[in-house]
């Protein structure tokens, strides 16, 4: 399964990407929302998952979520915000825009797995 990792920090893309790879995903990196939309417009299969930072140049994560939700072709893509934005109201905004999950930085890599288990994207593992 392909997974978009959208973050303007290369270090963060690497951390999230490596975690996803360990869970069986094939990560595809994008530096901002517009970059990710350009990738989605290509011929590749639609990713099963997108992990999305909020604050990025060119196009922020909330705008990306809104744009994805306007296109029924991308309906099956699970959207998870991965961001330092931690206000109650911001989480509500992102969920209302169509994000399924919301992971707040800083996070443990286990937390990514937990969220993907809740989303049904990885099998539930034994307690670790």
């Amino acid at each position: 399964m392909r997974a978009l990792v959208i973050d303007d920090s290369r270090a963060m893309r690497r951390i999230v990407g490596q975690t996803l790879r360990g869970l069986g995903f094939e990560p595809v990196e994008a530096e901002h929302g517009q970059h990710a939309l350009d990738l989605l417009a290509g011929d590749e299969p639609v990713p099963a998952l997108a992990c999305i930072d909020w604050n990025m140049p060119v196009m922020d994560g909330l705008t990306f979520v809104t744009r994805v939700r306007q296109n029924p072709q991308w309906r099956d893509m699970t959207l998870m915000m991965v961001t330092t934005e931690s206000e109650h109201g911001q989480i509500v905004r992102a969920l209302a825009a169509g994000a399924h999950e919301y992971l707040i930085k800083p996070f443990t890599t286990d937390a990514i797995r937990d969220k993907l288990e809740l989303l049904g994207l990885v099998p539930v593992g034994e307690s670790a």
Partner: protein
Amino acid sequence: MTISHDTFTFVADLVRRRSAILLEPGKEYLVESRLLPLAREAGASGVDQFVAQLRANPSPARTAVVVEALTTNETSWFRDVAPFDALRRHIVPELRAGGLGRLRVWSAACSTGQEAYSIAMTLQEVLVPTVAVEITATDLNEQVLERARSGTYTQLEVNRGLPAPTLVRHFQRHGSGWQVSDELRRWITFRQHNLLDVPPPGGPFDVVFLRNVLIYFDLPTKRAVLERVRAALRPGGYLVLGAAETTIGVHDDYERVVLDRATVYRSAGGRAAAAAPAAAPTTAATATAASLAAARSTLAGVPARPASAAVPPRPVLPTPARPAGSVFAPTSTRGAGLT
């Protein structure tokens, strides 16, 4: 992959000295599954190498992390969704069909309270307000109970197994962390309690959650605890154990019931209290199965922004295109029990 006898003996001895928890032969899988993530983080090839490094170069901090990994009760919210799914889809509807006016639940060995609050959140979603909910949550350790009562959790803790829609529905920002709503906190009474003592007040219970606790005890102690729980359950009430635990071969007065992906145990109805088991429980029963959950995984990212005091009114969330954010999103079946 299995760990060596030498590794197991060393870890079991360490844990026994530090916590009074007895890891008997046969618990190798527990040691391996709990320590493997630590081993990976440390760059070791496996648990054997990780433990060898610890022995060669012991430090109080690394030792404490190992002990904690083996003594910490599972404290992440809905990470194991099956029991909560069973509660919502089967147990509560069955109880309601029987004319339920009040629901009493015991969260035993509740540690810092995530399970008790998860039960409360689940029940609030499925019960009509006319049904009174009384949740009794107990632990041996007064320190963890104090944290549980406060209902406050760090950002790292709410990131683990708590769906974001559930977070915003039931929590408010509290300093740099989050606090459970006052309403849910009022449903729960936290008490200090030893599982081998007479059951806590608040029963008889319709449902008892006792997850990932029996794995720490030897057979006579397991039997004694299950006898206490049976006496606390209403006849026909349900016991929810951890995925690796069972009453089978331990206590005969429970009936195994499969509810979708969850296996639960129904108390045999109406029988008088059986004679107490003859064998004396060991000191393992005095173990504190709960300690503060450590953020022992790789910490990624930068510190969260300071919280503002402003809390918007309770939101009404639209349903996403796919209800993947649901607590009960379908997941594949959990692996077979490691009893």
